[in-house]
């Protein structure tokens, strides 16, 4: 007995479009775009991180509860947000943040290994870069589920900040173990900072995390996470501006004839 399957004309039309054969457009164009775009995406994301929050990302002893947690989510969400807009607008791909996180992961590790380890000889367990990949996956998942940049900016910024902290805390935790060093109780990260001298950074015996926020004790990181979220919402819209007006809006637009 034949079963009648209703044909969704729109879906059928889209399916035919996906599998359409062109004379010149083939997979090489996809490859060249995704491969070469990865470089500029990594560049924009890494320079934003380096020059807005780099000091807190370079060293284990600078990865503190106060500034690292507050500034880094803001600096790191900007380019993923821009790529979310570009990829969603162009292909309806909810992959922009993850793509950016993966690009910058490779670029940052190349930078740290080639430059920080083999150029000036710092060990990798002192200068490892923070990862954004879990945060990126969550941000993209939220866009896929809500299909709203406004919702992603508000809830996603909080998720981004929290996921950034959780995923990197797992890596950082061993360096926060207490050690007895020259009559003082310090962390392993502090001892790294003292052992591997950075002649041009602030005095190496200084406690990076300071000011009165420390009076909150264990609450410090939650206060920082909350403020980091607020800043990340702002950062998300900076990224949206880049994606909308610096990357997509100029398509087919021209200045006055010269």
């Amino acid at each position: 007995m034949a079963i009648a399957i209703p044909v969704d004309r729109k879906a059928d039309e889209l399916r035919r479009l996906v599998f359409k054969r062109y004379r010149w457009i083939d997979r090489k164009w996809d490859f060249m775009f995704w491969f070469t775009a990865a470089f500029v995406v990594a560049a924009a994301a890494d320079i934003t991180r380096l020059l807005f929050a780099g000091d807190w990302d370079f060293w284990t002893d600078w990865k503190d509860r106060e500034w690292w947690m507050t500034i880094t989510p803001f600096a790191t969400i900007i380019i993923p947000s821009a790529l979310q807009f570009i990829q969603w607008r162009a292909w309806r791909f909810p992959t922009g943040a993850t793509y950016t996180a993966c690009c910058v992961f490779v670029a940052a590790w190349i930078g740290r290994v080639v430059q920080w380890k083999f150029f000036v000889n710092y060990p990798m367990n002192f200068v490892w870069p923070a990862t954004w990949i879990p945060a990126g996956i969550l941000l993209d998942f939220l866009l896929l589920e809500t299909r709203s940049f406004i919702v992603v900016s508000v809830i996603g910024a909080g998720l981004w900040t929290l996921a950034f902290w959780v995923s990197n805390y797992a890596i950082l935790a061993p360096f926060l173990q207490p050690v007895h060093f020259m009559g003082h109780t310090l962390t392993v990260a502090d001892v790294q900072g003292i052992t591997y001298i950075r002649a041009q950074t602030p005095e190496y015996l200084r406690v990076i995390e300071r000011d009165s926020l420390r009076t909150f004790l264990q609450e410090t990181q939650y206060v920082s996470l909350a403020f980091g979220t607020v800043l990340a919402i702002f950062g998300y819209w900076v990224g949206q501006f880049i994606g909308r007006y610096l990357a997509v809006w100029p398509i087919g637009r021209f200045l006055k004839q010269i």
Partner: protein
Amino acid sequence: MEEIVQSARAPEAVRERQPEVYDAPRVPGKGPIDWMGGWKWGLLAVPILLGAAAVFRVYQGFTALSIGTDSSTPQFFWYYEFLVAVEIGIVGLFTILWWGWIIRSAKRLPEALGMVISRREEVRRIAVFWGLVGATSVNLYIEASFFPNQDGAWHQTLVRDTAFTPSHDPMFYFFFPLGVTLAIGTYLYGRTRLPAVYGAWKGFPWSFFLLIAATVTEVAQVAMNEWGHSVNLGNAGAEEFFSVWFHWPFVLYGWLAGGIFALWGETILRLYQIEKDEEEGVSPVEAATATVTSR
């Protein structure tokens, strides 16, 4: 049906009312979308640029810590200050030769002789254009990630006593100006080879305006950066912070490079139009006429 002409020598065509269609010779393996055809320069540019960065890095590996730490020595002059002049000379010479070739050879293009190019030839040019855009992208990575990482590592480790430190040399004086050369060169290629997208009659594209602004102002920002460091503003004496205000313009100019996505967008739309014309059997002459009359 396309009327195929195998060479560009046809001044008679200029005098004819119906322009002839130029198509490049068909060489196996070197077609418009073959890796060694239209994509050749896109494929070669990536290893060339990354190779250049690797050569600089190896040079620094042998000389930076032994010679590059004291700018007052004669060795420093020969290994690092003279290197700046060599770098600027190489980039300058490359710029003159490449831009000169693009502009001069444009006068010998079939279009300049009154012909119309085939769709196949236009697709090849778009592939070459994507290769140049890709090269600019790779150069931006070297400018904004590979060497800035080194700059941070170097300056937080050693005293800054010159603007020509080993970490600045390849970044500021080779890859930064090369970025300007690549961005403007890509525009010149687009303007002369892809008139349907970037023809002079359309005006100056916003996409290139943003990308060129990013590369030009990145070079200009070097001056502000060095000035900022020279007076140690915001840098608490001799201490070296990376996240200081006079570094932030580097980030802003990195964002302007977002215009590069518009280049991909504009040319892929043209590619779809070419495919549509092919599907509908529109002759290249008709398509070219439609493009011109839509001004």
